[in-house]
């Protein structure tokens, strides 16, 4: 059912980046999706996405639109597929041997499979921050400069500038500017996670995926990361997976509730938490299960 028009989309490549996805680009199916609020400016379009780990189906016909310059949260109980969905967006699931994806995902209007044979182009546009902060065992400077270097940037002055700007955007610059050339592993957990965000935005992605970025942090650091997520949405489109419903309520503009591989409900966060459209959503939000 989801042998999606991979080939048909290829002609779009030449049009990128002038072309922004519009309502016309969307299939009627998405347009008619009942859970979609005003999505005149989509960043990511997911269309009939199925995902399998070997024979096990992990995502079931997901279609949704993630709006540009907003924070979108995926919530749901453990094993509902929210992390899998997130990892589909930068094809991190490719690392899992038996994984298989069917369906279409468009980033900025371009089918991700047609961007390039090499996933690195996609991953440059879609950055990621992980659950467990994972700075490289290198210096703070080298951590942030790693991405730009990989993408071929040379020259000390330019790198210095990128490192400074990235660290400033995560409000870490003042804390570490005197020890840029010391090991990143000497930082506290919250600082390390902010460093990881700085590292991700140093390559100037369009979308920033955050996979439960606060689950290993104390409340104070969590607050800082949340503030950051809200602040960063001016420049980036943020997709965050969280266990924590309050966190979604605090920072997300849009929220998707997932259950057993289905996207049960997707909509404006305020509406989702006040007037959920589905019984399952209400049960989860009110803590009756999960």
């Amino acid at each position, binding site marked *: 059912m989801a042998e999606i028009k991979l080939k048909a989309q290829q002609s779009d490549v030449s049009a990128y980046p002038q072309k922004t996805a519009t309502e016309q680009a969307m299939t009627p199916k998405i347009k008619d999706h009942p859970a979609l609020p005003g999505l005149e400016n989509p960043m990511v379009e997911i269309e009939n996405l199925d995902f399998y780990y070997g024979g096990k189906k992990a995502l079931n016909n997901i279609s949704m639109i993630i709006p540009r310059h907003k924070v979108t949260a995926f919530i749901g109980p453990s094993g509902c597929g929210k992390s899998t969905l997130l990892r589909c967006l*930068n094809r*991190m699931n490719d*690392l899992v041997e038996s994984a298989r994806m069917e369906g279409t995902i468009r980033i900025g209007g371009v089918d991700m499979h047609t961007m390039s044979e*090499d*996933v*690195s*182009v996609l*991953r*440059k546009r879609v*950055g*990621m921050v*992980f659950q*467990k902060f*994972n*700075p*490289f*065992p*290198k210096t703070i400077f080298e951590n942030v400069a*790693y*991405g730009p270097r*990989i*993408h071929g940037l040379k020259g000390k002055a330019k790198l210095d500038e990128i490192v400074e700007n990235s660290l400033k955007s995560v409000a870490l610059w003042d804390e570490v500017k005197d020890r840029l050339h010391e*090991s990143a*592993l*000497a930082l506290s957990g919250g600082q390390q996670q902010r460093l*990881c965000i700085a*590292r*991700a935005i140093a*390559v100037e992605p369009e979308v920033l995926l955050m996979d439960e970025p606060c689950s290993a942090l104390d409340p104070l650091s969590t607050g800082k990361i949340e503030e950051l997520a809200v602040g960063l949405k001016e420049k980036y489109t943020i997709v965050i997976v969280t266990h924590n419903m309050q966190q979604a309520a605090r920072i997300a503009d849009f929220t998707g509730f997932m259950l057993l591989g289905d996207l049960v409900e997707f909509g404006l966060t305020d509406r989702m938490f006040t007037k959920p459209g589905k019984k399952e959503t209400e049960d989860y939000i009110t803590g009756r299960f999960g």
Partner: protein
Amino acid sequence: MRTTLKKVWRRGDVFIWLSGAGLSLSLIMTAGLLFSIFTNAAKFFWPNAVAAFSVEEGRNLLGQITGEEAIPDPENPKAPPKYRIQLNQGNRDIYGVDFLWLGREAIQSSHYPEGAVVLERREWGNFYGFIREVRDQGKIIASGPEKGLAAVHELLPASHAIFDRINRIAKKDIGAINHYLEDNRLELKALAAEGITSGKKVTGLEAENEQLQKQYQELEAALSRLRKTGTAEVLLETADGQNKILPLTMIVRAYAPNTFGFLDKVGFFFAKIWEFIWDEPRESNTEGGVFPAIFGTVMMVLIMSFLATPLGVLAAFYLREYAKQGPMVSAVRIAVNNLAGVPSIVFGVFGVGFFIYFIGGSIDQFFFSEALPTPTFGTGGILWASLTMALLTVPVVIVSTEEGLASVPKGIREASLALGATKFETTWRVVIPAVMPSILTGLILAMARAAGEVAPLMITGVVKLAPSLPLDGIWPFIHLERKFMHLGFHIYDVGFQSPNVDAARPMVFTTTLLLIVIVLLLNFSAILLRNRLRKKLAVSGV
């Protein structure tokens, strides 16, 4: 009662005692071994007094006491034991044997004569006796023990210089000429095989040969002139009144230990250690130094490291990072682990069969055919020994690199991939630096193993006495086909292959100590490097 026992058992005290006992036992055994090696080795360098004994039948003996033991008496086990001492009386050329056992009862009197001297000679071992006269060109320069020794000390540097020059000409200069002559001979032979027996090349080589011959004759003349300059002699008397004339060029060192103060003894001790480390062996390895063996050991270990480390690291990367994990890879992994347990002599046999006969033989056929049937690479040499050792130690490197790779956090690989790095970039920029300390750990273990291994080396290129080092001033400077000396084999050789066991025994301990020190030094430098890397990477902070 039973409940108390059970309580003790449950508290785990027994386990703590047992584990503590296990640790102490291992430590005591290691420390004991090291202590015994160390004391025995140190004793060898320390100048013993020279004792004079009068024994039955009016015999007089002179020498250094090297040991004492109880004489076993199986008939009367309860009787008080009788003792005998071991005496190094030297003078092998006069008495035939230098070590003898002397029953305590047989000794009628003993003292330490002031004038007794020890002469370390280039041949025939030590001489013990008294200096009567020192002569030069037939004239008496000094007489009596004290003045004689002073004169010997005065003349010795000059005769050492003469000896060194003779040695340098005979070994190095004439050796180089022989080397070039041999090269030319082979080149001419190769040309002849191609049918070229005249022409510019041939005449050039022949002219060069003539030149070399002329140089050779000049050197020979210089040698015979030099040999005539060393005319100083010393007239000696043994304890039992025999006279002996020794040319000074045959003497390495002369000293009277009975006149030594403590500082003299310490000075002598360090001089002996210096000689041991930097000199060439004498007297079929029982005297002198072990420098060629140190050099051979270190060079072999270094070549082995350069071969084994890249190979092992690459193999480990493929196994852990690229191969599809499954029964096949597990089987390979088990095989690699077991390879580390294969008896080392098996590797040696493989080295002989594959490296020396097959590869070396082929190299000889293709590149050194003019020298055949004399093998160049088709015989044992430092390259083949190092390759065999590399094969032996590569499993160690593989295992520790693999362990290192397994412990690189998945998170940092994902982080790198998520930034758009390819798998290779991730490996190159993140994984290799993080796994470097583990690679070095593997290298340390490999080096320790290679430095201590003897069996495979014995058949792949180690010899008792190598005429030249595998690294010298003759082009191409590194001679990988040459045979070499190795400390481990040296221990075996002096300990078990020496005709004069008593004279060789101290060398076993000193060489062992030296080998341990070298292994420690190699390891220590690798550990320092690893710690610096660790600090730089701060992997320990993860």
